[in-house]
């Protein structure tokens, strides 16, 4: 890299557009974006998904490989291109050739794959595809990466450069059009213009509430105050979602730019990013990016000589789910207990330290730069139904392809499952949950529903943050509801009694359904049945009287599973069976007489003394005493115990 002063003038020249046609600038841009390289470049995916899959070891092996063979190549860390199950991803750009991408390159595969590559003998089973580029020679018989369904089914606007560059590298961000929008705002627009553009775009908040961003900004702008704040909500604590994490790990500068524009638009000179402290990689990447933005004077005082001053502070959250709620978040930043406060007053009127405050989710803010640059009509050209633009989703659970994707609003869940998650048929899918514990469980009969805020709301589905978890027939829906209830019960801040006590009660009732007392009379079944009826009415009370969304939507996992999987509840309550074989207490254990050798090991270990039999004779289990603990099943060396 050249020294800072030269780079600095590169950034200023590009952003302030005084360059006209300047061959030196163009040359620098080509090098920065890897369109021109004189020696091989090897890229390695280094976002969390890559690291978990082993990319650090892969990188070490790569460097060792190059050293041993004295190959002069550059090794560059990139974010991730988002089919997480392909990690560790390694990509190679040989001079004059298209960039080519390989999947699942754990350290043991490095040698074979690179040997093949350098000797023109590709290991096709590891190839994902190549990036086509009119300047370079293509690889033969290698698919264009953008033709893969995973990519072609997406509309990548926010993620357009995912996995291509080093996330925190500001020069690469600027070389690919970054910070242009911010420069345009502070040199050409008044705050009012920006609020209007965003309001016209009808961008809906992506944090789950779906409130229109432009309206919120306009409200904040109209209030006269000595100090205003913008807060980026990156708390993301709903289980099963990793959207914000991936977004920040891949696009820290996009977020900084969005925050900078938003702050300018509402007249805030200070912004906070509230990020989960467990997200160490995201924090590291964002801190580096912030440092670079400061060095290049895109944050600080008199930015680009426009007279604008602005700073960003990164605040680590202590990871409570409720702190994602905006008033709780504000209390937490102010150094108080992270409990929600009653609204009104809304944060826009009186928020952090009692000053007007706008809270926006990280995804919302990342939408801003392209809206400003291309205009509201451009933004509204995306979206097939009521909602405009795109939505980020994450896919996890029982699926072949896990990943992170950006889809056009209005695309149906079926399309997501087929193209992005790679399901040929949906038979294997039992259900999916969207939006975490406060979201909804969706059965296959509703998979045709489009991802659209209004339409989903009409069907009483909460999209939440957009994290999707898939379930197959090894998941018990009653147990799943119990799992979510346990999470919510633990995360309730305790301020409202219906939420605190109600969620605990709901959990207990669900637990009661999934355990069994031996020697039950008839009334236990009746109690369980009454319990479920009780939850239905309890749910209404909790929803009506809770202060924040956590309590309000807390019955969702229970109500939605009950609605769509009622038969499973009935099976648990009346037949005392768990088809999925998950509920430990509802299992019955039997000994196969033919297989049992009478070794006596199980009888000795059974805590309930429920196993009888003489030594070297087949044993049997007394069902009335058995507590279904499963110890005998685990210790039997002859597999003579079966579960029913």
């Amino acid at each position, binding site marked *: 890299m050249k020294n800072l002063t030269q780079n600095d003038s590169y950034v200023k020249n590009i952003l302030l557009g005084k360059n006209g046609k300047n061959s030196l600038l163009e040359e620098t841009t080509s090098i920065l974006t890897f369109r021109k390289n004189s020696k091989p470049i090897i890229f390695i995916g280094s976002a969390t998904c890559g690291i*978990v899959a082993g990319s650090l070891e892969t990188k070490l092996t790569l460097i060792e490989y190059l050293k041993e063979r004295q190959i002069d190549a550059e090794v560059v860390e990139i974010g991730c291109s988002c089919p997480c199950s392909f990690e560790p991803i390694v990509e190679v750009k040989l001079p004059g050739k298209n960039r080519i991408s390989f999947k699942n390159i754990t350290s043991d595969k490095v040698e074979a794959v690179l040997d093949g590559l350098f000797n023109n003998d590709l290991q096709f089973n590891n190839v994902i595809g190549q990036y086509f580029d009119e300047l370079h020679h293509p690889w033969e018989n290698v698919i264009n990466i953008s033709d893969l369904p995973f990519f072609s089914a997406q509309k990548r606007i926010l993620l357009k450069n995912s996995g291509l560059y080093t996330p925190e590298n500001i020069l690469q961000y600027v070389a690919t059009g970054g910070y242009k929008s911010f420069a345009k705002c502070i040199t050409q627009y008044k705050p009012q213009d920006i609020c209007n553009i965003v309001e016209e775009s009808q961008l809906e908040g992506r944090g789950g509430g779906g409130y229109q961003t432009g309206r919120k900004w306009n409200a904040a702008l109209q209030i006269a105050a000595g100090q205003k704040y913008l807060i980026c909500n990156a708390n993301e604590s709903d289980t099963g979602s990793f959207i914000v994490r991936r977004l920040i790990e891949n696009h820290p500068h996009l977020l900084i730019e969005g925050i900078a524009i938003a702050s300018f638009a509402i007249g805030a000179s200070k912004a906070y990013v509230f990020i989960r*402290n*467990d997200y160490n990689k995201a924090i590291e990447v964002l801190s580096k990016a912030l440092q670079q933005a400061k060095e290049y004077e895109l944050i600080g005082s008199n930015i680009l000589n426009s007279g604008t001053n602005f700073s960003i502070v990164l605040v680590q959250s*202590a990871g*409570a789910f409720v702190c994602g709620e905006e008033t709780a978040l504000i209390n937490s930043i102010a*150094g108080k207990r992270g409990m929600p406060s009653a609204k009104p007053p809304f944060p826009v009127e009186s928020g952090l330290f009692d000053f007007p405050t706008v809270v926006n989710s990280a995804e919302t803010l990342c939408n801003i730069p392209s809206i400003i640059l291309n205009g509201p009509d451009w933004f509204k050209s995306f979206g097939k139904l009521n909602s405009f633009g795109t939505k980020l989703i994450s896919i996890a659970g029982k699926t072949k392809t896990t990943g992170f994707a950006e889809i056009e609003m209005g695309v149906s869940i079926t399309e997501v499952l087929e193209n992005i998650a790679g399901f040929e048929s949906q038979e294997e899918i039992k259900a999916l949950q969207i939006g975490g514990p406060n979201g909804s469980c969706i059965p296959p009969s509703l998979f045709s529903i489009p991802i659209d805020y209004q339409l989903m709301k009409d069907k009483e589905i909460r999209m939440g943050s957009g994290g999707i978890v898939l379930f197959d027939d090894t998941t018990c829906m009653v147990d799943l509801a119990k799992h979510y209830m346990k999470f919510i019960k633990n995360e309730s801040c305790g301020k409202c009694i219906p939420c605190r006590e109600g969620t605990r009660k709901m959990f207990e009732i669900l637990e009661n359904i999934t355990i069994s007392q031996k020697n039950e009379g008839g009334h236990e079944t009746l109690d369980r049945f009454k319990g479920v009826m009780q939850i239905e009415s309890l749910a209404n009370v909790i929803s009506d009287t809770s202060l924040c969304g956590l309590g309000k939507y807390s019955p969702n996992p229970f109500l939605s599973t009950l609605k769509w999987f009622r038969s499973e509840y009935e099976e648990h309550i009346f037949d005392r069976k768990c088809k999925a074989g998950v509920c430990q207490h509802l299992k019955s254990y039997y000994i196969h007489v033919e297989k049992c050798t009478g070794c006596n090991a199980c009888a000795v270990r059974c805590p309930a003394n429920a196993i009888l039999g003489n030594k070297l004779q087949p044993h049997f289990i007394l069902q009335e005493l058995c507590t279904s603990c499963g110890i005998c099943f685990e210790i039997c060396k002859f597999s003579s115990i079966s579960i029913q």
Partner: protein
Amino acid sequence: MDNLIELILLKYPKNATENIIEILLQIQEAEGFISAQSIIMLSEHVGVQSSKIYSVASFYDQFVFEARAKFIIRVCSGTSCYISGSDTIISFLEKEFNIRIGEITRDHVFQIETKSCLGACAQSPVLEINGVFYSNLTPQRIRQIIHQCKSSLQ
């Protein structure tokens, strides 16, 4: 230890309450837990009563007020990991160390905890030990990871 805390405090302006949680996080990282002494020092630095600081800190599950083990094994019990078998991993660890969730081994080396979601759901089930993630958790692999931790102590 006091010096360490002083160094942390020096990085933050006096009387600014917006840093309380971040400072607590840093103290916990340096000391392993939040000691009474560190709360008193923090309270003087930010100008907030120590009882208030304690009340804030105790709100967040993240903060602990007693010494902890060298290696804190956090098994993800978030939805994606839960349905992919995190329970089996927890009971394996409980047996392996002969302790229950939340407890510390007698030599103060290991401690098992659960976390609702570690944000690495794409590779479920996962666990994290002192900031490092692990996936593909077969019993052999878990034993190998534990072994690695132990040998890093020597």
